[in-house]
C-alpha cells in the first residue's frame, strides 16, 4: 500500500492530519515541561502554556546555582551506576545468550524461563528485603547497593534480546572462514563479531534506558546524595526555600536528563525498535 506512490489530494490531507495528530500526541507533554522549565516563578501561576518572559534561571539554578549540589551529584550517580549496571548486564547476557544460541546443554529453557520470570517480578517485593539486608551489611546508600539490584532489571531483557538476536546469526560463516584457512579465533572475530556487535549495542541501549528509568530502587535504597540517582532526587527535591515550589527547577532538571535519552533514541531508533520487538515478539 505504501508503495503505490502517488496520492490523491484527499489522501495526502488525511496523512498530514494523521501525522500531526500522532506528533502532537507524542510530543505535547514534553513540550509542556520544556515550556515550564523556562518560566519565571511569577509566570508559573498565570495558567498559560508558553512562558511570558522566557528565562534560563531554572537551568542556572540546577547547573550552577543553589541546587547544583543536589542535581549534579544525582546526575553523576545516575550516569555512573547506570553505565556500570548496563556494562555488567551486557557482558553477562552476551555470554549467556551465546551459550543459549550456540551450545546444546540441558537447562537452556530454565535459564530463559527464569529470565522471563525475573522480568515480571514486582520490584517493590524485592526492594523491601533488600532495604533491610543492605542496611545490615552496609550496602545501603552506596553505588554497589544500586548496581546489584539494577541487574534484576537489565539482565532478563538483555538475555532475551540477545538470544533472539544471536539465533539469527549464521554461525556456519565461522566454519566457512575456518575452511578458508582462518584460525578459530580469527574466524570468530572476523565472521561473528561484526554480525553480533549491532545486537550487543542495541541491547546495551535498551538496558541503559531501563536502568536510567528506575525509581523504586532509587528512592528505597538510598538516603543521601552518596548514591541517589536523578529520578529519586527529582522526587525529593524541595526547592530553594521552604515557601517556593521548585516547579521550574524540577522541570529544568527533567529536561536535562531527558535530552541525552532522546538523542540516543533519535540516533538509534531503528536498532531500538528491532531490538525491542525481536526480544518480545520473536523471543
Amino acid at each position: 500500500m505504501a508503495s503505490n506512490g502517488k496520492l490523491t489530494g484527499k489522501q495526502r490531507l488525511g496523512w498530514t492530519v494523521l501525522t500531526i495528530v500522532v506528533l502532537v500526541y507524542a510530543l505535547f507533554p514534553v513540550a509542556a515541561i520544556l515550556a515550564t522549565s523556562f518560566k519565571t516563578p511569577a509566570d508559573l501561576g498565570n495558567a498559560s502554556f508558553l512562558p511570558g518572559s522566557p528565562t534560563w534561571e531554572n537551568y542556572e539554578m540546577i547547573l550552577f546555582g543553589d541546587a547544583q549540589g543536589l542535581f549534579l551529584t544525582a546526575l553523576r550517580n545516575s550516569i555512573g551506576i547506570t553505565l556500570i549496571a548496563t556494562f555488567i548486564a551486557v557482558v553477562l547476557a552476551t555470554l549467556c545468550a551465546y551459550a543459549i544460541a550456540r551450545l546444546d546443554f540441558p537447562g537452556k529453557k530454565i535459564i530463559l524461563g527464569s529470565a522471563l520470570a525475573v522480568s515480571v517480578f514486582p520490584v517493590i517485593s524485592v526492594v523491601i528485603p533488600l532495604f533491610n539486608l543492605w542496611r545490615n551489611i552496609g550496602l545501603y546508600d552506596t553505588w554497589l547497593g544500586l548496581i546489584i539490584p539494577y541487574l534484576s532489571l537489565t539482565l532478563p531483557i538483555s538475555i532475551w534480546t540477545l538470544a533472539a538476536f544471536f539465533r539469527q546469526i549464521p554461525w556456519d560463516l565461522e566454519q566457512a572462514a575456518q575452511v578458508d584457512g582462518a584460525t578459530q579465533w580469527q574466524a570468530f572475530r572476523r565472521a561473528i563479531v561484526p554480525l553480533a556487535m549491532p545486537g550487543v549495542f542495541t541491547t546495551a541501549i535498551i538496558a541503559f534506558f531501563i536502568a536510567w528509568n528506575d525509581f523504586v530502587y532509587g528512592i528505597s535504597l538510598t538516603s543521601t546524595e552518596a548514591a541517589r540517582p536523578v529520578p529519586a532526587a527529582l522526587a525529593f527535591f524541595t526547592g530553594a526555600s521552604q515557601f517556593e515550589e521548585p516547579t521550574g527547577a524540577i522541570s529544568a532538571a527533567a529536561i536535562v536528563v531527558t535530552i541525552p535519552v532522546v538523542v540516543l533514541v533519535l540516533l538509534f531508533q531503528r536498532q531500538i525498535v528491532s531490538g525491542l520487538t525481536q526480544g518480545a515478539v520473536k523471543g
Partner: protein
Amino acid sequence: MTTAPETPRRQKREAAGSSAARPASRKNGNGGKRTNRAKSEARLGWLIAGPAFFIMLAVTAYPIAQAIYDSLFSFRLTAPDERSFVFLQNYMTILSDTEVFWRALLVTLLVTVVTVAVELVLGFGLALVMHKALKRIRGALRTAILVPYGIITVVSAFAWYYMFDINSGFVNGWFGWVPGIDSDLDWFANFGTAITIIMASEIWKTTPFIALLLLAGLAQVPDELVEASKVDGARWRQQMTRVILPNMKAAIMVAVLFRALDAFRIFDNVFIMTNGAAGTEVLSLLAYRTSIGRLEIGLGSAVSVILFICVLLICVIAIKGFKVDLASGTDSKGGK
C-alpha cells in the same frame, strides 16, 4: 584439521533437535548415552550462561524468600527487639482491611484494566498508521513515538502533573469552555480526576511500546493472505477480524500480558502526582509506605508477598487463558 570439529557438531545439532523438547531430561536422542562431547558442551554452556542465571536468582529469589519469611513476623525497624513470630497474623490484618488493602487492590485493578484496554486500541491504531504510512512519514512517526518510550516515568509524571496542577497548570485555562472544567478545578483533589490523569500519563508513556509490538506483529501477517482476502471481496472489517487479527494473536497476547503485569506494578506516577492521596493508593505504593515509610517490615513484607502472588496469578491466567506458551516461543513462535 580445522574441519575436524565440523562433522560432530553437525550431528550434535541434529541430536539437539529432538532433545530440545525436554531439555532437563537425561534421555537424549542418542539412546540415553551422553557422549563426552555432549557433557563438555553442557559444562561449557553452564559455565558461560551460569553467572547471569545465578545473579538473576540471587537478586530476586533470595529477596522474595526473605520477604515471605519476614511476613510471618511482627517486626518494626523502630522496635527491633520486639520482633516476634506471628505466623499469618499480618496477612489476616491486611486481608481484613477493606479501607486500605482492598481499596488499593481495586484501584490497581482498575488502572490495569483501563490502561491496557485503552493502550491496546490506541496502540493498534498507531501501529496501523505506521504500517500503512509512506516510508518518509513512517520514520518520523517512529521517532516521535519513541520519545515517550525514552522519557523516564518520573519525568513524564512531572510533565502531566504540572500541566494539570492548580498552581502551575494551563489546562484549566485552556479548556475552561469544556463543561466541568473551572479555573479552580483541583484535578488531584478527588479520586475520579486524579486517577484519570495518572492513567493518562501511564497510557501516554507506554502506548508506544504496544504500538511497536503490534507493528512487528502486523509485519508478520503474510501479504498473500491479505491480498487473497481482498480478491475474494472481503471488506476492511472482515480483513481485520478474519485475516489480520488472527495472524497477530501472538503479538497481541505478548503485548497484553507484559503491559498488564507492568500496569499492575504501577508506582512512579502515583508517587509523584498524589502519593496516594485522594484514594489513589495502589498496591506497590501501599507496600512501600508500610515498610520503607513506616518501617513496619513484617506487615510491608506481607503486602509485597500478596503483590507477588497477584502478579503470578495474572501470569497463570494469561498463559492458561490465552494458551500462550511463552517459554517455547524461543524455538518457533515468530517463525510463521
